[in-house]
């Protein structure tokens, strides 16, 4: 064999060997679609529509058996009041389970209430909050036992039979969306009402909102009207700088809302 032929053959052999088997495989589009489900649930919150009635919190607690008396909730509504002399108040009495039936600001258990002069109120609004079901959630990363996870269609769930209640995920969540279930003694969080959305129903909170402030959509379906809003209008997410890629989008965010 000549040196030239040897070089040629070597190059051909290397080139042939470097083609992976998978490149020669014929790809069936149906198989690819089945492996990557065309559903990814996302949430849209319009803070302009919210009036702070708290029906969403009540519906959520009822649907998911979260004790009413305990000061924990999977979803909550915050009230932001800005006064004309540039003071800002934020409160969420009992996660707004009973709405905001008091014009005074709830400063907390030991601080009581503070009156705000109605003439002094500059602007005020309500912001519903819930788990953002992030695309790269920090909470599921830190779980030492594999009890909390992100499903293929988006929602972040907790395996109640496997959770050891260590609370790492509660600390890791930048949004404070997780809590310790006082009765089950495991971590609990919003599931996007997984038992409802997988049956084609709305979540309990979306269902209960009379004003359409909360909406859900499949963000992979660009014909979905709610997805269209997320794609085309000016929406924001909370705490983008944490890099968790939240999937709850807000219309009408202010910089104080975090």
């Amino acid at each position, binding site marked *: 064999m000549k040196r030239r032929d040897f070089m040629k053959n070597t190059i051909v052999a290397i080139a042939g060997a470097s083609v992976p088997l998978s490149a020669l495989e014929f790809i069936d589009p149906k198989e690819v679609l089945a492996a990557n489900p065309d559903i990814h649930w996302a949430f849209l919150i319009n803070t302009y529509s919210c009036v702070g009635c708290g029906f969403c919190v009540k519906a959520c607690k009822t649907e998911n058996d979260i004790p009413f008396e305990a000061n924990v909730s999977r979803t909550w509504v915050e009230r932001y*009041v800005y006064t004309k002399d540039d003071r800002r108040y934020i409160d969420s009495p009992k996660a707004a389970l009973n709405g905001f*039936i008091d014009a005074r600001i709830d400063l907390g258990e030991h601080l009581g209430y503070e009156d705000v002069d109605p003439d002094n109120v500059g602007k005020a*609004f309500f912001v519903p909050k819930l788990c953002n079901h992030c695309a790269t959630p920090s909470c599921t990363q830190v779980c030492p036992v594999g009890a909390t*996870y992100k*499903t293929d269609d988006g929602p972040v*769930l907790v395996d109640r039979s496997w959770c050891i209640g260590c609370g790492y995920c509660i600390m890791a969540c930048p949004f404070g969306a997780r809590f310790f279930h006082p009765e089950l003694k495991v971590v609990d969080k919003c599931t996007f009402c997984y038992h409802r959305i997988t049956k084609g129903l709305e979540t309990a909170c979306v269902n209960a909102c009379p004003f359409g402030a909360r909406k859900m959509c499949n963000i992979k379906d660009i014909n979905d009207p709610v997805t269209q809003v997320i794609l085309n209008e000016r929406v924001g997410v909370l705490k983008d700088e944490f890099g968790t890629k939240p999937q709850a989008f807000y219309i009408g965010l202010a910089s104080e809302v975090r």
Partner: protein
Amino acid sequence: MKNHVWRPLYVVIGIVAAILLFREVYVPGNFGSGEYGFMYSYHNKDNEQVWKDQPLKYQDTGKQKMHEYCGECHGDEVDIRTTDLHGIIPCENCHGPALDHPDDPELLEIDRSRDLCLRCHTLLPYTTSERKRIPGIDPNEHNVGEDCIDCHNPHNPRLEDM
């Protein structure tokens, strides 16, 4: 290497092997990760079904299909309700979750409390929020101690029809 290095190393290797063996036995075989990989979604695959099987409580579903479940039997009433001012409020917000109604419970527990109405009708001086469009009262001055429904009809709240 000398013996004094190997002996503790055998112990460590033994411990690691024991932990791996215990893990193999203890962790169910249906553990795995999905589309989001080991970092975000290592879990027991059966648990997804557990969450899907949670019981439904609210049956009347969503804005688009509102009053569908209730309308099956209470059709005429639901038709009237949907045209009045409170028609945007889902039945179950006041009448309670339907659960397996009409079988269980046969009668729903209706929340007729003053606090339920006050969720929306407390006067809050927030002119920049949607709240400004809702008529409000001061709960500490407006007929204190009485139930709203003694005077107001929640299904037809117009004051001229009172």
